[in-house]
């Protein structure tokens, strides 16, 4: 059995008196490429933040590399949901990626090693040519690649991506998933999305989240899980999902 990199046991989260996650248990292993789908507001972003220690669960336990998320989250590369940053911020692509190295030596300048890692991260995502560009002057797909490079510059062992393909056109998406496929050789990847079709084609395991998590540690979804999560007949959601993913009961 591969090493468990992230483990959640019976995790519940509520904002005020609104439950957002209920009794979520999940194990993620080395080299997994886990897709988590679910409707908007289903708690996907919250789940990632729980893993990152940014949101404290009300109940349950979170382990990251066998330890406290606050201690070990630096081994996680985080690619946040795209829309959240200030597009007019005066920062170049290179400096964005370098912030992935900013913790390495507090109070010191970036070293040549930091710059080399940032450069090769930009190369991996195919954005080296844009390194001087102000971040807001890139297309959505290009920005997404830069944020992946920023995460990679920190040399993570797991990559968490929050809706990375939103707002990227279909052709670029294919390249994008190929990139993730390559990265998966070196690390586990967890990708959150509300686009069922895209996710089910590219990932190695799939889970469905709407407050509760429906997951069988495999690339199979049960029709009843999907119906429970989306609260509608499976025919309405399932078009486009390959038959090998959706198991009839």
């Amino acid at each position, binding site marked *: 059995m591969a090493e468990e990199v992230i483990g959640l046991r019976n995790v519940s989260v509520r904002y005020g008196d609104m439950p957002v996650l209920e009794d979520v248990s999940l194990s993620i292993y080395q080299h997994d490429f886990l897709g988590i789908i679910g409707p908007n507001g289903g708690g996907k972003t919250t789940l990632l933040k729980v893993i990152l220690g940014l949101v404290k669960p009300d109940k349950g336990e979170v382990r990251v590399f066998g330890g406290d998320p606050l201690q070990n*989250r630096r081994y996680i590369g985080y690619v946040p949901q795209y829309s959240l940053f*200030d597009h007019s911020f005066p920062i170049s692509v290179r400096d964005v990626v370098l912030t992935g190295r900013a913790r390495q030596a507090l109070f010191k300048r970036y070293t040549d090693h930091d710059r080399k890692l940032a450069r090769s991260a930009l190369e991996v995502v195919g954005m080296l040519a844009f390194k001087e560009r102000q971040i807001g002057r890139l297309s959505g797909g290009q920005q997404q690649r830069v944020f992946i490079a920023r995460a990679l510059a920190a040399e993570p062992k797991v990559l968490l991506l929050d809706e990375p393909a939103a707002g990227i056109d279909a052709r670029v998406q294919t390249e994008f998933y190929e990139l993730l496929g390559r990265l998966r050789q070196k690390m586990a990847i967890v990708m959150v999305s509300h686009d069922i079709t895209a996710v089910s084609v590219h990932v190695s395991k799939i889970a469905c989240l709407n407050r509760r998590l429906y997951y069988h540690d495999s690339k199979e979804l049960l029709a009843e899980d999907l119906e429970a999560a989306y609260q509608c007949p499976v025919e309405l959601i399932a078009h486009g999902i390959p038959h090998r993913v959706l198991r009839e009961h």
Partner: protein
Amino acid sequence: MITALEYGFMVNALAASLLAAIACGIVGVYVVVKRIVFISGGISHASFGGIGLGYFLGIEPVLCVIPFGIASALAIGEVSRRTRLSEDSAIGILWAMGMALGIMLIALTPGYAPDLLSYLFGNILMVSRSTLWVMLALDVIIVTVVCLLYKEFLAITFDEEFATVIGIPAHKLYLVLLCLIALTVVMLIRVVGVILVIALLTIPASVSRRFTNDMRKMMGISIIFAALFAITGLYLSYLFDLPSGSTIVLVSGVVFLLTSLIPSGHNFKY
């Protein structure tokens, strides 16, 4: 003709303008890009309590504003995190409490009525030599901290959450940044007064943004503009016998309007 006495005032005033420009040029860039203008307004108004305290205790008000401003900055940074109060309510409350406390303490101080207006609206012609030394020391602190923490500040102002995840003590550094704002406020109180501080924290940085997308260059350009605004305002106020603080702020505002009319290669919203 400028008399010798006036000449002495003017030299001190010019020196104060330049020293204040360095602080507000650098720190103002963070205020503008991190969008903490309201927080900065809160810190500067709350600092007025420190002026009142200085009068009441018979200590030089500027020295009293430093600890008071830093305490206000830390309070604003912490209150919203520790309590269920929203951040802007916390700021609003401290803003008004500081002002009220300052006026109360001044009223309770026996003896002569201090020159309230000069602290509310600034009077750069009253800057003394010892104040200049304090301002120089504050500039040295601000420049040193920003040099040491430049990359960390960039990381937390661009994306605080990501910075936290990779292991930067983002909240602590944010508090350090608020303290730098408090120190800058102390310098600017002398130049434009508590109420107008926010103009010199935001206008030079906003203008500089039209010329570059690099934060370091923004700081340099913004220092130059802050100095130009202060010196031009000072000159005009001398020439036409106008209140110096308001003249400086109005000059800044006019230049800001003019530069926003010029089409630029960096036309993002501010």
